[in-house]
């Protein structure tokens, strides 16, 4: 006889408020239903009441983990409407901040995954390492969470001393290679806890339309940084780690390898940082009537913004956001079916959900 276990919306295993109804038979999960909407702040509607400067500050607060990605995507879409092109230095600084953000997001996820595995020492180690990433972000932008680096046609702040930042990144890379990566790639504890659970086959991954590391862990080699380069990604050399297994361990591996790739991109971008202006310098620009879209590879997958504007208006007439969790969420159902009840917190966390982005 099957019974229903409601989890949430406020539950110790969940980082954010959402509700997971698990239909179980004994210890085995037969089906799952996900209810979201507890974070709904009506940001898309609010954006229509804000002008072109305020809307950047508003969209930065869609998500506290990937705040830079949201402003980057929005600014790219608005640049499409105004016809401004950011100068090369701004493009490189955008890459540096975006990669640092990916680093801190992946390390944060690794920490939370370690906690859900019951590996609390690793959780503390990850957060200690994450503080070093935050130090670099703070050295560049002065802030820890909402960096406010992007503006229309460029960035707000310069990287004054790329060599000092490069040294910090190299120290960080050594530390990552020494502690986090071996534990997540070769440790028996992590392997025995994660291997073979929450499997998402390639077929299901395609039919659910998953994005980002979740897709790459199921054998879909998709990465917008490679497929549709934005900012200065076309000039960077990096690999896109892909795993074929589709289980939680594959997702762990993809993220661990991506941490190293991010460090590689950071080193290249900081070494090659071109001289020049920080923004196009154009204070007077006009928005054309129409809709512009922009796609960016966030730490969790693809973010898409579609911004509509009417000529001579200060406010956007519509800002539509599609977040990676929205695409990855339906896959949770296929991952938990047949899983043990005790594994479900780890499985649902393995897509790195961000419901505050999804609800907005």
């Amino acid at each position, binding site marked *: 006889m099957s019974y229903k276990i409601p989890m949430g919306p406020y539950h110790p295993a969940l980082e954010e*408020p959402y509700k997971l109804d698990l239909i179980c038979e004994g210890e085995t999960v037969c089906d799952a239903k996900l209810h979201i909407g*507890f*974070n709904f702040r009506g940001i898309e509607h609010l954006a229509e009441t804000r002008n072109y400067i305020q809307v950047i500050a508003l969209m930065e*607060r*869609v*998500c*506290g983990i990937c705040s830079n990605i949201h402003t980057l995507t929005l600014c790219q879409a608005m640049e499409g409407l105004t016809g401004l092109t950011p100068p090369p230095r701004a493009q490189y600084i955008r890459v540096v901040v975006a990669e640092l953000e990916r680093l801190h997001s992946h390390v944060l996820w690794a920490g939370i995954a370690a906690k859900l595995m019951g590996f609390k020492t690793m959780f*503390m180690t990850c957060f200690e390492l994450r503080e070093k990433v935050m130090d670099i972000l703070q050295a560049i932008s002065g802030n*820890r969470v909402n960096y406010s680096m992007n503006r229309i046609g460029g960035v707000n702040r310069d990287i004054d001393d790329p060599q000092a930042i490069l040294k910090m990144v190299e120290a960080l890379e050594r530390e990552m290679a020494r502690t986090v990566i071996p534990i997540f790639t070769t440790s028996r504890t992590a392997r025995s806890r994660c291997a073979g659970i929450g499997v998402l086959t390639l077929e299901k991954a395609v039919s659910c339309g998953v994005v980002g590391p979740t897709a790459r862990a199921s054998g879909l080699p998709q990465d917008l940084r490679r497929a549709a380069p934005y900012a200065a990604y076309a000039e960077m050399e990096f690999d896109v780690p892909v795993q074929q297994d589709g289980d939680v361990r594959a997702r762990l591996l993809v993220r661990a390898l991506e941490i190293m790739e991010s460090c590689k991109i950071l080193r290249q971008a900081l070494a090659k940082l071109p001289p020049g202006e920080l923004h196009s310098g154009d204070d007077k620009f006009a928005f054309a009537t129409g809709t512009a879209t922009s796609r960016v590879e966030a730490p969790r997958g693809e973010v898409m913004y579609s911004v509509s504007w009417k000529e001579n208006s200060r406010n956007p007439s519509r800002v539509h956001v599609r977040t990676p969790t929205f695409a990855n969420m339906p896959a949770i159902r296929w991952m938990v079916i047949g899983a043990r009840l005790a594994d479900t917190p780890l499985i649902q966390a393995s897509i790195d959900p961000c419901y*505050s982005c999804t609800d907005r």
Partner: protein
Amino acid sequence: MNPWNKLMCYCRRRSPWLFHMNSGSCNGCDIELVASLTPRYDAEQLGVRLEGSPRHADILCITGPVTHNAVNAIKTVYDQVCGPKAVVAIGSCPATTNVFIDSRTLEGPLNRHIPVDVFVPGCPPRPDAIVLGIAKAAEILANRAAKKLPVEPVCIPGTECAAECAAGCAAKAAASEVQP
């Protein structure tokens, strides 16, 4: 006060347990709260522990601008925390609803629904400010248990709100405005 109560007051001040609740926050403050409990900032040196159940907690840490869907949950969770209890509002969102002001799906600020003891403004506040806020809440908790009244709301001024504090802190003004 009898020695037993004295001991309880001492324990409450020295080892308050937290329950964290996200009332529609953007995750920024939640992550900073977790960061303040981890090795660099180490709020656990205050005897603080993050608890899974509100019934075990002394201090309720609330982040977020209080969405329509979260209001009833906040009231329920507040009632579930055993007294004496203290509430810490982390971030500018629960104090003033921040950038989301005018949104139709928000029921904030937080002190319209439950009494708040410590405001930690900032978007998000730095982990050091959060640790200080928790320490202040522990003090308030001990005073409340010892029935040293009245207990006024406290504000932890951060670097971000220095300008506002000079002109009279926004969070404090909001706190004195409405009490349930």
